[in-house]
């Protein structure tokens, strides 16, 4: 085995063996080697040791399942926490001989009996919850009935007595009724379990629920019909729900998401936060994750940081199937779908786009409400990855070269610092959005909205385009700043067969106002077949009519930004812009002037 070639051959056989793809002949040869060659045997044992270690690099499989089984057998969930602590410390364990009070080993029957008892306990609790809900509904009905009776009685009394005595009588009756009501209907309210820590345009189906920040929340069903609400559980987990959503707060570290979207950030101290859905149970293991319960009851689980334990099925069913429960640990960057009515778990495309993971600024909310097809926020999370927060599949974007973000972005209607993408004016550092060509203005048109800050006033490109193959074809700048500080926008045709490859400018519009160095501007461009508009800070600055009627379609492959010279040989092109860009949004329709005005105005609140 000293021959490296032999070792590599043996290594390949072992890889195939581990993967189950070794042929019969190869396996026979391997067996012979292991049986007859002590060097090969030693190599084999070391090989399996390293392979075992390799397989453990990214996975926690058996232990988690086992731990859960043990936790359930012993009914001691603190084992999970202790295990988590132990995992963190990673210190070797020295076990002393301890005279422990050890319970007898459970037989299969005894364990099943325990499980049945546990299920019965859970069912009893669920029954109790239902009963409490019924009582609550009855109480509300009775209160309403009494209120009506009180009003009717007051009217009767009012008709009989004079104005003065009427007031006195009403007051007396009111006080008596109020006191009676108090005595009759003063159930001990359930303790608060969470706080509505923030919210934008929050509207609950139940108008009695609070909408103001810092309102305390009790356990119970809540239906959010509009807006976004941030709920911080007393256990420490923070959840953001986006309307429409139906959720039931169960206790300080547990909730039931019936439908809609929720993202959760769970700090270390809140680890173990559990979220149940109609089709799955998710237990946080210290992480940030999001769940979307679809209309059919299936649940999509996305893990952004850390990991979660995912159990498929309704909670009651899970307990019933303790030993064949489908459990998976979902790691950061993974997404799974659990189908309703079955325990099937399937990988789905991971995307961060569909969820609000932090309370949005008024501007972000307004942009989201205007339904862009692509929206890049350049937050601190996106320094390395260029994340489209709307639809990362449809519009793939990436940073090319070295791109950085700073927190000197424009104000977005709240007091929070805002990150922006820095543009250093170098030609090889830029952001590339792909699949833009599908956004042609034949139907509803298209729009582009962004914040821009130029650190110098000079002739410089902001957005340029290239062909899908990555080769520069057009020398025209798409959106740029002239040396006077005016923003200018060119529309051109991309119909090769008509113009034999020539770039044809069909329209050029430029702003009236001249940009100042270091100031943020809100730019918006809208395109339709009949109309091209350029807006700055919510106001129409320039427009052109019928740009496409005459010349056909518009090609909208964009480079964003600093690569101005798409073709290095094109000396006429302007250098890349030096400054910053933020909150870039693209649309598959032409936004109206009112919409653009609103976008800008919410940022100025």
């Amino acid at each position, binding site marked *: 085995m000293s021959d490296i070639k032999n070792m590599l051959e043996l290594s390949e056989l072992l890889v195939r*063996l581990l993967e189950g793809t070794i042929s019969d002949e190869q396996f026979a040869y391997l*067996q012979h080697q292991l049986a007859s060659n002590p060097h090969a045997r030693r190599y084999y044992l070391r090989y399996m*040791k390293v392979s075992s270690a*390799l397989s453990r690099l990214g996975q926690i499989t058996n232990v988690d399942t086992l731990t859960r089984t043990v936790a359930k057998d*012993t009914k001691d969930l*603190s084992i999970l926490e202790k295990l988590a602590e132990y995992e963190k410390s990673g210190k070797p364990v020295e076990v002393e001989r301890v005279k*422990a009070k050890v*319970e007898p080993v459970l037989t299969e029957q005894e364990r099943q009996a325990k499980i049945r008892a546990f299920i019965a306990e859970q069912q009893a609790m669920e029954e109790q919850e239902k009963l409490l809900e019924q009582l609550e509904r009855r109480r509300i009905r009775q209160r309403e009935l009494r209120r009506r009776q009180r009003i009717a009685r007051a009217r009767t009394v009012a008709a009989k007595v004079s104005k003065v005595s009427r007031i006195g009588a009403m007051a007396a009756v009111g006080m008596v009724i109020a006191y009676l009501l108090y005595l009759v209907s003063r159930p001990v309210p359930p303790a608060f379990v969470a706080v509505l820590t923030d919210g934008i345009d929050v509207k609950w189906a139940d108008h009695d629920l609070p909408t103001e920040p810092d309102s305390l929340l009790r356990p119970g069903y809540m239906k959010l019909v509009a807006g976004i609400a941030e709920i911080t559980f007393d256990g420490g987990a923070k959840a953001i729900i986006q309307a429409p959503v139906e959720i039931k707060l169960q206790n300080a570290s*547990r909730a039931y998401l019936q439908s809609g979207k929720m993202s959760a950030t769970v700090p270390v101290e809140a680890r173990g936060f559990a979220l149940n859905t109609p089709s799955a149970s998710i237990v946080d293991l210290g992480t940030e994750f999001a769940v979307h319960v679809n209309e059919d009851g299936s649940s999509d689980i996305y893990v952004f940081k850390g990991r979660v334990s995912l159990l498929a099925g309704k909670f009651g069913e899970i*307990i019933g199937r303790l030993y064949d429960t489908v459990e998976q640990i979902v790691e950061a960057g993974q997404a799974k779908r659990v189908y309703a009515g079955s325990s099937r778990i399937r990988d789905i495309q991971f995307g961060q786009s569909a969820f609000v993971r932090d309370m949005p600024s008024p501007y972000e909310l307004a942009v989201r409400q205007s339904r862009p097809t692509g929206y890049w926020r350049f937050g601190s999370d996106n320094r390395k990855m260029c994340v489209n927060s709307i639809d990362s599949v449809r519009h793939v974007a990436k940073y090319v070269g070295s791109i950085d973000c700073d927190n000197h972005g424009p104000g977005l209607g709240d007091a929070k610092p805002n990150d922006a993408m820095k543009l250093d004016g170098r030609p090889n550092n830029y952001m590339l959005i792909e699949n833009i060509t599908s956004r042609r203005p034949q139907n509803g048109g298209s729009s582009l909205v962004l914040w821009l800050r130029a650190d110098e006033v000079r002739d410089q490109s902001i957005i340029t385009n290239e062909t899908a193959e990555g080769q520069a074809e057009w020398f025209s700048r798409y959106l740029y700043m002239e040396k006077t500080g005016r923003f200018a926008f060119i529309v051109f045709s991309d119909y090769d067969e008509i113009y034999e490859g020539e770039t044809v400018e069909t329209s050029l519009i430029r702003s009236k106002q001249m940009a100042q160095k270091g100031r943020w501007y809100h730019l918006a461009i809208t395109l339709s077949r009949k109309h091209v508009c350029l807006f700055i800070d919510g106001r129409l600055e320039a427009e052109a009519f019928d740009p496409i009627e005459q010349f056909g379609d518009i090609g909208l492959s964009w480079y964003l930004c600093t690569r101005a010279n798409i073709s290095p040989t094109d000396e006429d092109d302007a250098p890349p812009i030096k400054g910053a860009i933020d909150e870039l949004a693209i649309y598959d329709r032409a936004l109206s002037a009112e919409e653009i005005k609103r976008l800008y105005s919410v940022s100025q609140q």
Partner: protein
Amino acid sequence: MQEGSGYPHKPGAEFQGELFIRLFMTNQSNIHAFILSLVPNWADADDIMQETATVMWTKFGEFELGTNFLSWGMTVAYFEVLKFRKQRQRSRLQFKNELLESIAQDAVNTNYSLDDTVEALRECISKLRHRDRRIVQLRYQKSKSMNEVAHCIKKSIESLYKAMARIHHALLQCVQRKLTRGDIV
């Protein structure tokens, strides 16, 4: 899941459960490596590990505290391997009985320290070439299948097997060097 208001307090069970988990955590790597030596197939070894863990927990009452948990675990694992082989006796990829016993004997006698191996392995992986490291990450950290990995790195499956053999061998040599030199503290 943590549905309900909590669990009844049973001091003995809690102690037993926690103790078991800790002991198992400490030794599971070695037990897994032992199983993998006897049944060198990822999926089968995982299944057997799962069964072994369950049986160990069920029989934990029989384990005498203070004695060697790893030896006990390997014994349980060995029986689980035999059980598995019986169930799959028609499988074409089973070592002959004599060879299995011989490997088991060697594996038990090996002074395993898988924690050191894992630590050394991490360092060795960090020294791999970028493309090789990516292969390791995709296959073992992201749990992609060989076909998926081949697709990701735009290689044929055959050349991936060759690359994987080379990587495994390089890692093995590197780990061995580190452990021999005592680089890993």
